[in-house]
C-alpha cells in the first residue's frame, strides 16, 4: 500500500516537474510546480513527516506560489487566451466547490472534540509532529536555527540593496 502511494505520487511529482520545464507559458509552469510541491508533500506524509507536509502546502504551494504567479502576471501580459473564454461554465463550479469546502469545515469543527490523541512516546509516529520538531529545533538544531535567522536577515538587506530606488 505504502509503496503504491509512493509510486503514484513520485510519478506525479516527476511528471509535473518535467511539465514545468516543457511548458512555454510561465503561468502553466508555475501551476505544474504546485503539482510537484503537492505530491512531494504527500510523500512527506508517507515518511511520517506530517508537519513538514503541511508546511510544504501552506508555505510553498500556498504563499510562495501565489507570489510567483503574481510576479509572472505582473511581468508579462500574455496574449489573449481564447480557450479561457470558451470555459465560461467553469465559473459555476465555484458554487458546489464552495459548498463542499464549507461542509468540510463544519464537519471538522463538529468532530474535533471527539478525537483522542495518540499516547506520547510512540517514537515511530512522533517523528513528524510539531512536538518533536519543536523540541529538536530548540535543542539539537538550536544553532542552525539561529544561523538561519542571520541568513534571512542578510537576504532581506541584500534584496533591499538591489531593489530600492536610486537616490537622485
Amino acid at each position: 500500500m505504502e509503496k503504491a502511494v509512493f509510486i503514484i505520487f513520485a510519478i506525479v511529482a516527476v511528471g509535473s516537474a518535467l511539465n514545468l520545464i516543457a511548458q512555454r507559458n510561465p503561468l502553466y509552469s508555475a501551476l505544474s510546480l504546485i503539482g510537484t510541491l503537492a505530491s512531494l508533500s504527500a510523500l512527506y506524509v508517507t515518511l511520517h513527516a506530517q508537519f513538514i507536509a503541511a508546511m510544504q502546502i501552506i508555505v510553498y504551494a500556498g504563499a510562495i506560489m501565489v507570489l510567483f504567479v503574481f510576479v509572472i502576471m505582473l511581468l508579462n501580459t500574455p496574449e489573449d487566451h481564447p480557450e479561457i473564454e470558451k470555459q465560461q461554465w467553469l465559473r459555476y463550479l465555484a458554487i458546489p466547490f464552495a459548498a463542499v469546502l464549507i461542509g468540510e469545515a463544519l464537519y471538522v469543527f463538529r468532530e474535533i472534540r471527539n478525537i483522542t490523541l495518540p499516547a506520547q512516546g510512540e517514537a515511530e509516529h512522533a517523528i513528524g509532529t510539531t512536538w518533536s520538531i519543536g523540541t529538536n529545533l530548540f535543542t539539537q538544531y538550536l544553532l542552525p536555527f539561529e544561523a538561519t535567522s542571520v541568513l534571512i536577515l542578510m537576504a532581506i538587506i541584500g534584496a533591499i540593496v538591489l531593489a530600492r530606488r536610486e537616490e537622485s
Partner: protein
Amino acid sequence: MDTSSLGISYHAILPELITATAAIAIMVGDAVARKISRRTAGLLALAGCAGAAVAVFSLWGETGPAFYGGMIINDPLRLSFAIVFLAVSTLTVLISIRWIEDEGLPAGEYFALLMFATTGMLLMASANDLVMIFLGLEITSISTYVLCGYRRQDIRSNESAVKYFILGSFSTAFLLYGIALIYGACYISGAHPAATTNLQLIRERIADGALFSPRMLMAGAAMMIVGFGFKVATAPFHIWSPDVYQGAPTPVTAFLSTGSKAAAFASFSRVFILTFAAASVMGSPELRELQSAWTGVLAVMAILTMTIGNLVAIVQTNIKRMLAYSSIAHAGYALMGIVARDWQAVAFYMIGYAVINIGAFAVIEAIARRGDIRTSLSDYSGIGFRSLGLASVLSLFLLSLAGIPATAGFVGKLLVFKSAWGAGFHMLVVIAVINSAVSWYYYLRVIVLMFFSEPAAEFNPPSLTKSLGVALVIMAIATFYLGLLPGRALALLENAKNQATMIVAK
C-alpha cells in the same frame, strides 16, 4: 532533553557573534544616523574584524568537546582558517573605504553585507555538521551575490551578479543533494540517531564499516566535490569565475577570489580530509578503494584547473580577467594540498595567496578609477615611472603570485608541492611546476608593460588615500614576512597538526 548536554557556549561562537553583531550595528547605525558616514561604517567593520580576531586568539588551544549538539567544533583547522578569513575581511574593508567614497554608493549596506559574508565564512570553518556547512556557505554566497551587483547602474556588475547567482544556486543544489545522499548512506537501523549529518558520527560510522551503502556515500561525496569545486572555481566548474570576477566591483573581486575560496577550502578540508580520509585510514579495504577513487578525481581536477587557468590567462587582455584565470590556477595548486590530505599547507597557501591577491586587486582598483574604466592591459603600458610606488607594489604582488622566492607565494607553493610529493603524487607535482613556469609569462608581461613600454595614453597618477596606503603597506610587509620568516606561522600550523592527529586518534 537535557539542555546542559548540548554544549551551549557563547565563547565557542564568539568570533561569529562579533562579526554578525558588527553587521547589525552598521545597519542600525545607518538607520538611526540617517546617513552613516562611510568612514564610520568602515571603522565599525574593522572593529568587528579586530574583535573577532581577539575572540579567535582567546579560543586558541581550547579544543574542547563539540559545542551546540555537535554543530560547532573548536579545533586547529577552524582557528587557522578563521585567521585567514579575518585577514581577508580586514584588508577588503581597508581597500573598500576609498572605493565606495569615489563611487558614491551607500556604505552601510556594503560593509554590513561584507561582515555577514565574514560570519558565514567563519561558520563554514567551525561547522562540524553538514547542515552548518550548508548554512555558512549560503550566508557567504548570498551576500556575495549582492555585493557582485552592488554597482547597480553598471551593466557588467549586473551580469556578474546574475551569473553568479544562477550558477551559484545550481551548485548549492548539488552540494545539498550530496549532503542528503551522505545522510542516507550513514543510516543504521535502530541506532540513535538513525541517520546523521554530524561529521564526527559520519566518521565513526565509516570507520566502523557500519554504512547503509558505501556506494551511496561515494555518490554523495561526488556531489559534494561538484558543489565545493564550484565555490573554489576548479575546472571544469570554473566557467563562471572570469565573467563574475571581471564584472564585480574590484574590492568585491578581491574578496571573492580569496575569502570565498578560502572558506570553501576550509569546508572541503573538513569534509574530505578530516572526515572521509581520517575515517578510511581505519576502515575496510572497500572504503580505502573509495578513498583512492576520490583522491584520483581531485588529482585530475587539480591538473585540469591549473593548466586551464594558466593557459587561458596568457591570452587575456583585461587585467581583472587575467587575474581571474590566475585565481583558477591557484585554486588548482591549493587543491593539491587537499589531494595530499594536508590542510595546513592549504591554510598557509590561502593566507599567502589572500595577501598578495588582495594587494594586486587594490592596485588595480586604484588605477581603474571611478567606474572601473581602466582595467585593460594596455592601460598599464608605461605607467611604471609615472606612478612608481603603485607600479612597484603591483610588481611585487605579481612576482609573488608567480612564486618568486622570499615572498609568501613561494613558500605557499613549496608547502603544497612538498606535501603532494611526500604523499606520492610525483606526476602532479611535476605538472604543477611546469604550470608555475608557464604562469611567469603573463605575470611578467604586466611588469614589462609597466616599466619598459611607451605610455599609450596620458596617465595621471592616482592619489592614494590613507586607508588604501595602510592596506598596501601591510600587504607588502606581510608578503615578505610570510616569505622570509614563515617559521612562526608554520610552527603554529605544525602544532595544530599534532593536535589534530591527537583528536582523530581519540
